[in-house]
């Protein structure tokens, strides 16, 4: 069922295709593709990371609002274009320990039981991204990556945050590595409106609670040259610790600022 869904979503993107090159689309929304932010330019959302183009081959990024809680640094490296395929790699280090200790608390906001203390965890992600224009105003991107954690000690398996979207992204802090595969189709609907439809799976290398899938749909409105509003949905499926696999639908919203 999941494979069929992934295939259908990619197919829908492909059949709307023709062939030419981007521009307004990439200027407004290169996030989640193999393209980098142009040198000297930046953009940041509340959910989307802050991205800055160092040069044509290197972009740095981090989640600014979460920086005090999850110190993080990432780089995206451009590997050039081969047969219309734009290639890039992503490398990211983050330390979620402060965040986990902050939300392990009594009272409101206690997402994790206060009896747990988290020792040092370093999360490492390495991935590849490839993007190809498949229509005059459409890009198809695919990603594959591996996230793993270097831990001072293994956290208690009952100290997880068992919520869709959050749980799969934190699963490798606790046990196993996380293999992430995804694809997205992104396009323009005129000068100011853009869309993205994507799928992503998380396969955790452990015997239980090890498969998660997300389908995202997003519409973006470029309000001005440096401000965009995005909204959409995440349809999440997962095998959580309480055994019953389930589908859940969540809304998404983000505000993105950046260089003109």
């Amino acid at each position, binding site marked *: 069922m999941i494979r069929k869904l992934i295939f259908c979503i990619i197919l829908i993107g492909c059949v709307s295709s023709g062939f030419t090159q981007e521009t307004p689309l990439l200027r407004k929304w290169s996030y989640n593709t193999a393209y980098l932010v142009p040198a000297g330019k930046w953009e940041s959302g509340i959910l989307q990371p802050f991205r800055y183009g160092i040069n044509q081959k290197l972009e740095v990024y981090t989640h600014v609002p979460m920086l005090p809680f999850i110190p993080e640094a990432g780089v995206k490296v451009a590997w050039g274009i081969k047969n219309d395929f734009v290639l890039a790699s992503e490398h990211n280090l983050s330390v979620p320990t402060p965040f986990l200790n902050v939300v392990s608390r009594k009272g409101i906001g206690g997402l994790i039981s206060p009896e747990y203390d988290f020792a040092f965890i370093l999360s490492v992600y390495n991935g590849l991204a490839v993007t190809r224009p498949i229509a005059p105003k459409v890009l198809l991107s695919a990603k594959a990556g591996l996230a793993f954690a270097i831990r001072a000690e293994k956290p208690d398996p009952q100290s997880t945050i068992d*919520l869709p979207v959050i749980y799969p992204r934190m699963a490798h802090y606790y046990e196993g590595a996380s293999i992430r595969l995804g694809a997205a189709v992104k396009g323009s609907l005129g000068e100011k409106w853009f869309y993205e439809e994507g799928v992503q799976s998380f396969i955790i290398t452990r015997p239980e609670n090890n498969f998660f899938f997300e389908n995202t749909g997003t519409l973006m409105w470029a309000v001005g040259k440096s401000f965009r509003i995005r909204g959409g949905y995440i349809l999440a499926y997962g095998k959580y*610790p309480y055994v019953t696999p389930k589908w859940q639908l*969540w809304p998404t*919203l983000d505000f993105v600022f950046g260089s003109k």
Partner: protein
Amino acid sequence: MLAAVLLLFGSCEPLATSFSDVEDAVMYSKELKTTAPQPDSTLKVMTWNIRFGIGRQPWFGDACGDNTVFRKDEVIPGLEKIVTRINQVKPDILFLQECDVKSNRTAYIDELQYILDHTYFNYAAYVSEWKSEFIPSDGLGRMDMGLVILSPWPLTDAKRINLAPRGDQAGIVNYFYLHSCIVTANVKIPGFKEIPLLNIHASAFATDDTKKKHFEEFKAEMDILNAEGKYFISGGDLNELPPGSDSTDYCYEDMCPGESFHQPGDDPMHKDGSNYTPETEWLRPIYEAYSCAFPLGEYQQNQPAYFTHTTRPGHTWDRTLDYLFTNHRWRKGSAITHQDFLTESDHAPVSAEFILVKE
């Protein structure tokens, strides 16, 4: 953080479950059924708040503890103790309160299925009183705690009856908080009239008149059955003292380190759920209308013999909160407060034999 907020409050599936006035109960049954007994004249009924199988361990919510969640190897021994006691007393009908079904705090164990599989009961009716996909407080996470009626005979027409919400809580707290309720079902024993069963867990910590409303709603359900000429068995954890109790304020007994009550300037002056002084007459209408397994006169003569609860780990029982009622009769001398079950829960079970009515 924004992502977390959006996720917590934005799901199309609500994070906390809200309940209708009346809903169907969730029915459980055992795959390999045992042969139901054939009673000749009485039916042994027991009510027990099992404190979700954690025994007397200090939980943050009710025993000055720091822990919120318990590991599987802490919960399973607790459940083993509970089923050992059930199999020892051998009630025909069992009312349970605070039974967890796949809750984070009890390692996602389906406690009801465990109890069903490890006792002679074949059927159970379950209703949730505290159900939330995720409670973003104290690390509670996913919660499903409820009330159960267990029986070796099939249960029919099992319902959840919602009770009044707490009137002393802020909206957002109430949204994620437990919603007191009654589980009802009918049991038909061959040769005898069908018996309606009612199991209640009234509010423990309400400081306004919420509990009084719960007792009125509970009595109203019994009154309906009584008016229909049916003989019922009711009971549960009413979180209330019998009228005429000598001690009515347990703030000092329940006080946690660092807390202060009854002193000038203390706010609140009393610990939530520990001061029963304004409530001493709230159960009298039920006592006057129906027959308690322990008549009020007997209780008042020797109160400690009927105590069923304490909040303090390591201490013995210091108050009575658990009851069995009927509009028919209990076999004289059959009622027992199982005060020797000291380590299985923070409540002692109460059992009594109901006199069956032939068809």
